[in-house]
């Protein structure tokens, strides 16, 4: 049943976001602390547990994977409702931050692949 997958996703999201809210209260921040991340870990654990028990049905997969595939469209809709007009004033900042980030990370990849090659038998 497809709804089982959607419900599993909903339960993981509710618990994760709930824990994130509680964590925020415990840390005295008026914020949700890592709720989405906790929910993701819960969903991964739930899938592992279900597949170990052989209970990972096609319906459960369909129900969650549908929403995973809706992620890009939702991001597009999300982009379409941002206050881009006021962000446009910060133009060069965006470019500088993005270019520096990619450059630095590419450098680290080069470094890692050198070291990694040396360690391999």
């Amino acid at each position: 049943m497809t709804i089982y997958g959607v419900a599993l996703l909903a339960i993981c999201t509710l618990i994760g976001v709930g824990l994130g809210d509680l964590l925020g209260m415990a840390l005295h921040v008026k914020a949700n602390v890592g709720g989405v991340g906790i929910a993701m870990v819960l969903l991964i654990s739930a899938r592992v547990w279900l597949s170990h028990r052989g209970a990972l049905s096609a319906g459960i997969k369909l129900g969650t994977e549908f929403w995973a595939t809706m992620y890009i469209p939702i991001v597009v809709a999300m982009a379409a409702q941002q206050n881009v007009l006021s962000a446009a004033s910060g133009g060069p900042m965006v470019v500088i931050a993005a270019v520096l980030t990619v450059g630095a990370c590419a450098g680290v990849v080069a470094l890692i692949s050198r070291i990694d090659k040396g360690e391999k038998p």
Partner: protein
Amino acid sequence: MSFLVDLLTKQGLVTAFAVVGAIIYASHLISKYLTGGRIHGSAIAILAGLGLAYWGGVATHGQKGIADVPMFAGIGLLGGALLRDFAIVATAFEVDVVQARRAGLLGALSLALGTIIPFGIGVAVARFYGYTDAVSLTTIGDGAITYIVGLVTGAALGASSPVMALSIGVGVLKAIIVMIGTPFLAPFIGLNNPRSAMSYGGLMGTVSGVTGGLAATDPRLVPYGALIATFHTGFGCLVGPSILYFTVRAFTG
């Protein structure tokens, strides 16, 4: 004409599905025929979304982009916090834990570095441009990790919409640079085997950037890069509004 506007307004969310579907379809056509598949359709669609948001802001002088146009209010629901978080959690379902364990130390290391380095650069650049409050600095720094992390953090910490848009802007531009630049960078950074693809996925983070870029470099490397990159957003969402925010707050006071 007013009948059509009424219909589209009343069917808000349904209209949003149709509009976003049309945007993505057009973007994939542009990707295929105008860029030879080099720029991923999703990246073009997101840029189109940001473009529409700009137009919405000009037309309505509102804060919510195209969602301020009554006919497109459903876009606000589709792209709102509720469905956004729901869909992001759902993407975790596709992470293969067995394969992920094999990535082990390398994946964890690149994931950690790929979170800390972009965050540090993002915060430093934002500070340079005059932002001093911990919420704005963290949101922009997290946007440099990926735009989703920036959004989740911004929403969690209550960042202002202009700061959110900057944060997304950094993340989206990063994804586009990775997408276009990967084939050119690959020979210089040893990106020609599964292990380097994994560290690349962890360091660059952006799933659309990494998968698009690796596909243009060597399609066989895509799953390895994507595997680590899919953890990137979850990891960032976990530490972004918490550890990283507290670190920044400790410095700003």
